[in-house]
């Protein structure tokens, strides 16, 4: 891949998906896009770039999907799901006792492991949620990924990553060499296509937003933009859950970390955010520290 081709693909991915590749990610592009190019009968990356410049709509979709599909597994990182059960849901059960309803958004739902893990957590809570209206909306950029999530069919390899064996037996049905999640859990989740760079106000407001391991691919301005828009979709006493390597600190004052609960954030009063604009460069980190 020539430097020109790499630069073209970097800019292309940035514009079309928000994916912000650093300078030395040639290997990532090659490992994801070479198989795609070959499958489409092309000789290599050079021809793929030519076709993209020619504006092939299907190819644009395929390339974005191939680059943004990430490895995921059930109960990934484990700790956020412990927080979800022990802290988030126990707070929400108290706060929404009259309304008896909870709305959860998996903003990077990928192939379904995260929303289904949440569904299993909720099922395990049993009687505490009897009579509750539970809504889980899982969104992803990729149609192909959403179809897999909807079907809820996983390989033997996939069901052995992060999923306790008792959960496998309890919530899945074996179909030949694959395992499908039970219809009851599938019915708990609505899968929708969504690009986080686009407007998502139509989804309504949520009590809990899981947005893990997707913003790490975005540049700073895009992250800030997404955080600020997420803040508008979250209830004032709601929770934002980020990935292990992600934070709002130094980027925005719209959320604040919860002490002793890594990865958990609460929205700040929106008026506070307006009066305290986030500055560029080193300053926002200090602004955020001062704001806590």
């Amino acid at each position, binding site marked *: 891949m020539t430097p020109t081709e790499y630069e073209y693909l970097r800019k292309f991915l940035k514009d079309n998906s928000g994916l912000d590749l650093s300078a030395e990610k040639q290997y990532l592009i090659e490992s994801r896009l070479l198989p795609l190019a070959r499958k489409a009968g092309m000789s290599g990356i050079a021809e793929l770039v030519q076709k993209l410049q020619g504006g092939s709509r299907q190819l644009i979709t395929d390339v974005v999907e191939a680059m943004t599909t990430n490895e995921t*597994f059930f109960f990934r*990182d*484990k*700790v956020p799901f412990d927080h979800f059960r022990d802290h988030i849901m126990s707070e929400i059960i108290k706060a929404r006792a009259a309304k008896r309803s909870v709305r959860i958004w998996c903003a990077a739902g990928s192939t379904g492991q995260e929303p289904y893990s949440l569904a299993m957590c909720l099922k395990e809570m049993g009687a505490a949620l009897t009579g509750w209206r539970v809504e889980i909306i899982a969104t992803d950029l990729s149609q192909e990924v959403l179809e897999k999530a909807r079907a809820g069919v996983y390989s*033997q*390899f996939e069901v*052995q*990553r*992060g999923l*306790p*064996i*008792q959960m*496998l*037996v309890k919530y899945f049905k*074996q179909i030949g060499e694959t395992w499908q999640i039970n219809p009851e859990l599938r019915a708990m989740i609505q899968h929708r296509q969504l690009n986080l760079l686009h407007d998502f106000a139509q989804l309504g407001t949520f009590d809990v937003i899981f947005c893990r391991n997707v913003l790490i691919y975005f540049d700073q301005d895009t992250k800030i933009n997404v955080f600020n828009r997420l803040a508008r979709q979250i209830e004032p006493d709601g929770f934002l859950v980020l990935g*292990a390597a992600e934070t709002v600190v130094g980027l925005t004052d719209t959320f604040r970390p919860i002490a002793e609960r890594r990865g958990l954030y609460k929205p700040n009063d929106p008026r506070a955010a307006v009066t305290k604009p986030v500055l560029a460069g080193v300053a926002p980190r200090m602004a955020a520290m001062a704001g806590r």
Partner: protein
Amino acid sequence: MKTCLVVDDSSVVRKIARRILEGLEFEVTEAEDGSKALEICQRQLPDAVLLDWNMPVMDGFEFMGHMRRLPGGDQPKVVFCTTENNVAHIAQALSGGANEYIMKPFDKDIIADKFAEVGLIPVGQAMV
């Protein structure tokens, strides 16, 4: 250092498992069938057993039954690791006292995940 007994009649599988487990900082001993594994356990119980099902002389399920009845035999974490990949076998293993269950083929990630699941290694270690 925690100890893990690898019980499998295939020397290749034992070798692969040993390499993975040593990478996870276990001290590994091996046995080629349930009977030999039981002799080892009668001398000293390991912290973990990675256990094949189908083996000559004594199979993994029978071994687990005997081991669980030894003094302190309820302590080791038993992780089955077998080509028996159907719900009936999994349910039988769990009700017989297994803590986790791996369906072959396996790799480092699966072993690390399952060992973290039963508390043999910290969760963070499985992520590496």
